[in-house]
C-alpha cells in the first residue's frame, strides 16, 4: 500500500464525518452583512461629499480609511472576529476584511515583540492580496499599454 493510497482513503473516510455547510443560510448571511457594510460605505461617501464638499471620487479615500479604522478597532475589541464567524465571506470580502486580517495577524503575534511579532506579521495574511493584486495589475497594465501603442 502506498502512502498516496492511504491519504486518498483517509480523505474519503473523513468526508462522511465532516459537517455539510448550509449553503443557502451562509449565502443569505454573507449577502446581508456584506450589503450592510457597503451601505455604511455609501453613507460615509455621502457624508464626506456633503460636509467636506468632496467629489464622489475624492470621497473614496476618506471612506475607505474610515472603514479601515472602524474594522481595526472592532478587531481590537474582538467584535469583528465574532462577526466573521457569523457572516463568512460577508465580512471577509469588503475592505474591512483586509483591515481585519492585518490587525488580527499583528495582535496574534504581539507576545513576540513589536518588531519581530507585530511588524513582521502585519502582512502575513494580507500580503497575498497585495502580491496577487500588484502582479495582475502590472501584467495587465503592460498588455494594455502595449495594445494602446500598437493600434
Amino acid at each position, binding site marked *: 500500500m502506498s502512502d498516496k493510497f492511504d491519504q486518498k482513503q483517509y480523505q474519503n473516510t473523513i468526508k462522511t464525518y465532516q459537517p455539510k455547510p448550509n*449553503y443557502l443560510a451562509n*449565502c443569505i448571511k*454573507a*449577502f*446581508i452583512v*456584506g*450589503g450592510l*457594510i*457597503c*451601505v455604511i*460605505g*455609501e*453613507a460615509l*461617501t*455621502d457624508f464626506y461629499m456633503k460636509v467636506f464638499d468632496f467629489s464622489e471620487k475624492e470621497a*473614496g*479615500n*476618506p*471612506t*475607505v*480609511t474610515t472603514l*479601515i*479604522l472602524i474594522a*481595526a478597532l472592532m*478587531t481590537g475589541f474582538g467584535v469583528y*472576529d465574532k462577526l466573521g464567524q457569523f457572516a*463568512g*465571506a*460577508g465580512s*471577509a*470580502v*469588503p*475592505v474591512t*476584511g*483586509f*483591515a481585519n*486580517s*492585518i*490587525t488580527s495577524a499583528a*495582535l496574534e503575534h*504581539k*507576545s513576540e515583540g*513589536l518588531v519581530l511579532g*507585530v*511588524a513582521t506579521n*502585519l502582512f502575513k*495574511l494580507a500580503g497575498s*492580496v497585495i502580491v*496577487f*493584486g*500588484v502582479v*495582475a*495589475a*502590472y501584467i*495587465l*497594465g*503592460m*498588455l*494594455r*499599454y502595449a495594445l494602446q501603442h500598437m493600434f
Partner: protein
Amino acid sequence: MDYVWAFVVGGGICIIGQLLLDVAKLTPAHVMSTFVVIGAVLDVFDLYDNLIKFAGAGATVPITSFGHSLLHGAMEQTKEHGFIGIATGIFQLTSAGIASAILFGFLVAVIFKPKG
C-alpha cells in the same frame, strides 16, 4: 436608490465569495486573492468603472476594487510618464487604504490585548 444598489451589488459580490468558500472549499486568503485579480481583469475593458457608476460603494468597498484601483492608477500614470508609469502609478490610488491599514493595524496591535 443609491443605497439599494450598493446593498444588492455589495451583497452579491459577498455571495460569490461565500460560494467560493463553501462549494469550492477555498480559504478566505484564496478568495481575497482571487477577487483582487478579478477586479484588475474587469478594469481592462472599463467594466468595473461602469459598475462603480452604477453601484457606488457597493463596488468600491469590496476587495475587488483594490485590484481595479491598482491597474487604474497605473494606467493613469502611463498617460504622463509612458511605460514607467505602470510602476510609479500602481499604488497611487490604493496608497491611502494601505497606509491607513498599516497605521491603524499597528496602533491597535500595540494598544489592545489579544483576545481568545
